[in-house]
């Protein structure tokens, strides 16, 4: 199966600075890949390059089958980027924003409604102007805008930042659900515990290049087995951190990243039954029907939130996490890091 993202020795410039200085990356459909690396490594630029926003000047860059060097705009509608900027109009309400961006991307009104429901924004918050929202709520609104587009490739830039624990769980659940319906997720995060538990594998970036395991030369000094695949049991997905580490990001020295954290994540017992998260707004997580992918997950590969059973808006606070049944993704073949 052709990879959703294929980058080979890709170089991308921000003005005159080579933010990406040689990226090798292959992401197959249905994978959740975590990008890891210090600030300035180029994670954000890599995500934006995959969205066609930053031109790739050297190497190969093929996303969703289109050559980004020649047609960067071709894939824009099929890709969803959740970045540091919100892309929201302060004067409009949450509902109006999601509806505008949804209609701009030619989505059905039903999908817009479903996106609002999935992020818990279809209640009181729907008619609140974005200017009056907290940072976390704005993040959720941006996420709703992304959901409404039903993209085949999700590009998440530090998606957990600014969200409380309940919202983080919800995001993880949505990611898993989308992947189960055929989407692919590329995520950059400093929240390593949570993200590593969520991801199928981890890719390290340093100074604009992907670090390959066992590479010769100085580049191989990055810790130990960090670049290895992180095999995660399906049951680990989503809920691992509810009772666990503090909600702050874990900042990790690149040299420290290694087998230690990986095994720690695997050791943590999945706490899916999730203690109710105190103080969180009622965040309904719809029960997910595992959609058994028949050979090729999804139809055109576009996840369809509307296909989920009607979200139970009155879900009690105790419910979050409990309903997230493990979603098997047998069609995924995590390819090794190039």
């Amino acid at each position, binding site marked *: 199966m052709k990879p959703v993202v294929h980058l080979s020795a890709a*170089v991308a410039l*921000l003005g005159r600075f080579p933010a990406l200085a040689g990226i090798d990356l292959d992401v197959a459909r249905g994978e959740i890949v975590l990008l890891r690396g210090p*600030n300035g490594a180029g994670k954000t*630029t890599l995500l934006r390059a995959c969205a066609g926003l930053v031109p790739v000047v050297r190497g190969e860059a093929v996303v969703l089958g289109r050559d980004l060097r020649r047609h960067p705009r071709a894939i824009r509608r099929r890709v969803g980027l959740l970045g540091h*900027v919100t892309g929201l109009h302060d004067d409009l309400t949450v509902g109006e924003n999601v509806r505008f961006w949804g209609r701009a991307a030619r989505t059905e009104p039903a999908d817009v409604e479903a996106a609002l429901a999935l992020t818990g924004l279809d209640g009181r918050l729907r008619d609140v102007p974005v200017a009056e929202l907290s940072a976390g709520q704005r993040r959720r609104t941006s996420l709703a805008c992304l959901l409404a587009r039903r993209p085949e490739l999700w590009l998440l830039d*530090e998606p957990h*930042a600014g969200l409380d624990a309940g919202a983080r769980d919800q995001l993880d659940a949505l990611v898993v659900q989308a992947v189960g319906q055929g989407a692919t997720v590329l995520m950059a995060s400093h929240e390593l515990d949570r993200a590593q538990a969520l991801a199928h594998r981890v890719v390290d970036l340093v100074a604009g*290049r992907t*670090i390959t395991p066992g590479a010769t030369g100085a580049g191989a000094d990055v810790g130990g087995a960090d670049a290895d695949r992180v095999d995660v049991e399906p049951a680990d997905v989503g809920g691992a951190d509810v009772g666990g580490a503090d909600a702050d990001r874990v900042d990790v*020295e690149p040299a420290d990243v290694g087998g230690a954290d990986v095994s720690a994540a695997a050791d943590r017992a999945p706490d899916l039954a999730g203690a109710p998260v105190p103080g969180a707004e009622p965040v309904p997580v719809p029960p997910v029907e595992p959609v058994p992918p028949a050979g090729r997950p999804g139809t055109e590969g576009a996840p369809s939130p509307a296909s989920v059973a009607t979200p139970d808006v009155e879900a009690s606070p105790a419910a979050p996490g409990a309903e997230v049944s493990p979603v098997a993704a047998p069609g995924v073949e995590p390819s090794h890091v190039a």
Partner: protein
Amino acid sequence: MTIVSPETPTASPDAPTGTGSPATRVLGGLALAAVALAALYGLVWSPADVEMQDSVRLMYVHVPAAVFTYVGCVITTVASIMWLRKRTAGWDVLAGAGAELALVLVILTLATGSLWGRPTWGTYWTWDARLTSTALLAVLLTGYLALRRLDLDPDARSPRVAILGLLLVPNAILVSRSVEWWRSLHQRATVTTLDPQIDGDLLVALMCGFLAMALVFVWLLVHRFRVGWLEHQAGRLDLDQALADRRAEGRAAVAGTAPDTGTGPGTGTGPGEDTGPGEDTGPGEDTGPAASPPASSGTGAAPAPAAPAATEVTA
């Protein structure tokens, strides 16, 4: 050790110390001679005009200046169109050179016209069609050059400048047509044309003026273009060098030591910083390139010093 890839031309091995060349020296010599000739004819050999007396001599400068102003504007517009199609920097430089020359010449046109007007009409300025539209053209050119001067990343600046340049000639035409139409409704009794019927020696003087102006114009254009081109070359990114610096920075960061490229704290100690979601990492936005001035300066400074400033901007 950088390896120069075939598609990235290296900086010229012997950087030129000036913009002269054998051709331009010949041209310059000719231009000088033509100016001398025009001055002689214009000031000495040709007689004063019957009506305008000696002030007609200003015409020998004024009319060619006006004509070549338009030539400069046309160069700018055509070069802008070519840039939009070909996207090579040379056209952008040419458009700028044309506009600068046009501005100089339009000011000369207005000045000589105004000086001519004083003895003729008794006033330095009159709102007749030509003068008015010429003045507006001066403002259009000033605006165009102001946009060029903005401290922007070339990628951000060039499309905007090109579209504005493209609109220059249409704007100039629209303005002059509408002004002419407007002022023709208020025709003054004394028709104040600025290029009267002339013949004989006066015509010869005018032709000399044209010749001199043409040569000087071309000479200036070539030199201005070369200066602009050199500026462009000097500021151009040597991609391989930049990549090598970035990789060195990466190796040093990984090794945990401060890289010897002189990068600041933003690199090797990245993980210790909690930049938070408020970090401005919108590299594609206009604030991105502008926020890292060292990276986008037009000098030939190596990209290495630029790296620390930029690394603090990007994630």
